[in-house]
């Protein structure tokens, strides 16, 4: 490159950012319409592979360091667990008897077995770098049976909570859009009072979820701390998955319904593993057939 570029070269150089901005806008125009999806899928397959690699390097280093300390603890735990195992073996024998009895009693009472969903476990490999689009990247994709719009749940402190849904699927990775994203909506109901509403995100893990369109009459029945679960109506989410607990109730006079702030049941910053629900048994069909 010459030391003193000509006027034409300088002009061409200055035009480059403008051209790139125009190209970006054209991409946006195309992708916000129906053509969206195809380039994203190809992209996530290619770049998801590298992102998985980064996550793998990170976990290898942290796991190696952690395992040194873990080895010491394991020796002590082993002794303790050997003793526990003996006790639990005895308990298990009693438990099998109790389970058989419980099943018989349920049959007599006419209760159906708890619905169970086929789940695919996945590890979170990355969270979206920009806080504007809070997405989660998991290490399972098309080859593992993941499809677009499948619901994603996680277990934390023994509770099953709703994480979100699959937004895009690559070959070996998928993007999950969490329920706290601003564009995410979930058909929900209050677990105790059974009133229905629509839960939406606020765009951040630190902001509460908001449940809207709940009938005004529900105000007297709702209490702080009440559990909100998925309703399953006209929704991709199966029913009765915990979403959050009522934190605040807003009853604005000019609105025909009340709004509630929900404290999410899951701490999204601590999530490491999730489960993608592959098939949801149709509860209503089963009930009807009974």
């Amino acid at each position, binding site marked *: *490159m010459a030391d003193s570029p000509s006027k034409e070269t300088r002009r061409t*150089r*200055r035009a*480059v*950012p403008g051209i*790139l*901005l125009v*190209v*970006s*806008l*054209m*991409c*946006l*125009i*195309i*992708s*916000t319409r129906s053509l*969206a999806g195809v*380039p*994203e899928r*190809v*992209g*996530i397959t*290619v*770049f*998801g592979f*590298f*992102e998985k690699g*980064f*996550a793998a390097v*990170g976990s290898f280093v942290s796991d190696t360091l952690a395992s040194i300390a873990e080895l010491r603890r394991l020796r002590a735990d082993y002794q303790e667990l050997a003793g526990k195992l003996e006790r639990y073996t005895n308990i298990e024998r009693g438990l099998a008897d109790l389970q058989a009895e419980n099943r018989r009693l349920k049959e007599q009472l006419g209760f159906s077995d708890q619905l169970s969903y086929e789940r695919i476990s996945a590890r979170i*490999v*990355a*969270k*979206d*770098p*920009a*806080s*504007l*689009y809070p*997405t989660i*990247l998991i290490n399972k994709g098309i080859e593992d049976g993941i499809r677009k719009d499948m619901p994603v749940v996680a277990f934390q402190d023994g509770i099953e909570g709703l994480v979100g849904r699959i*937004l*895009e699927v690559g070959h070996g990775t998928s*993007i999950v*859009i969490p329920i706290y*994203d*601003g*564009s995410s909506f979930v058909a929900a109901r209050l677990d105790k009072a059974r009133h229905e509403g629509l839960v939406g995100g606020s*765009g*951040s*893990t*630190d902001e509460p979820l908001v449940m809207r369109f709940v009938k005004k009459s529900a105000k007297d029945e709702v209490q702080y701390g009440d559990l909100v679960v998925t309703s399953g109506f006209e929704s991709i989410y199966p029913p009765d998955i915990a979403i959050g607990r009522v934190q605040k109730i807003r009853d604005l006079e000019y609105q025909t319904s009340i709004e509630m702030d929900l404290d999410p049941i899951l701490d999204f*910053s601590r999530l490491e593993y999730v489960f993608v629900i592959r098939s949801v048994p149709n509860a209503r069909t089963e009930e009807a057939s009974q």
Partner: protein
Amino acid sequence: MIRSIILSTLLLIGCSFAQSAWLGGIAVLGVVPDLSLVALIWISYMNGPVSGPASGFLAGLVEDFTSAAPLGFHAFVKTAVATAASLLHGSFFIDRFLLPIVLGTLGTIAKALAAGFLSLFFGSAVHSYSFLDRIIWLEAAYNGLVAPLVFFLLAPLKRALAPERGRS
């Protein structure tokens, strides 16, 4: 120049993947520093109007692929921020702390303005920051704080990433 664009793009993509895979542990109220943005500001400031915006555009496209954002969103935002930073090319001497902090902070605000500009045209199809929300200010402060460290770490790569500057 092509070489510096390719190297800069790879560096930005690396930063982007690293922050999404590793930096969750240092998140403050859900916000992690945008290493890729800070590195982009440095590259653009050092190179002028071609390499910075071109690398920002390419790295932004990759971010679009790995996020829920519509294709072109990050590409536009990063190109716009890089263009703004490249306009300052050679205007100031970059010291150890003050200018990196200012550039990191202002770059984040420029990013929010670019996203806001897009939301004017694309409405709810794209997300934008709310200037009344703490997230943008938290991210701006966080990026400002990490900028001196990022600029310091990038300085030895000046010859590879900013060859024009390196020759002068």
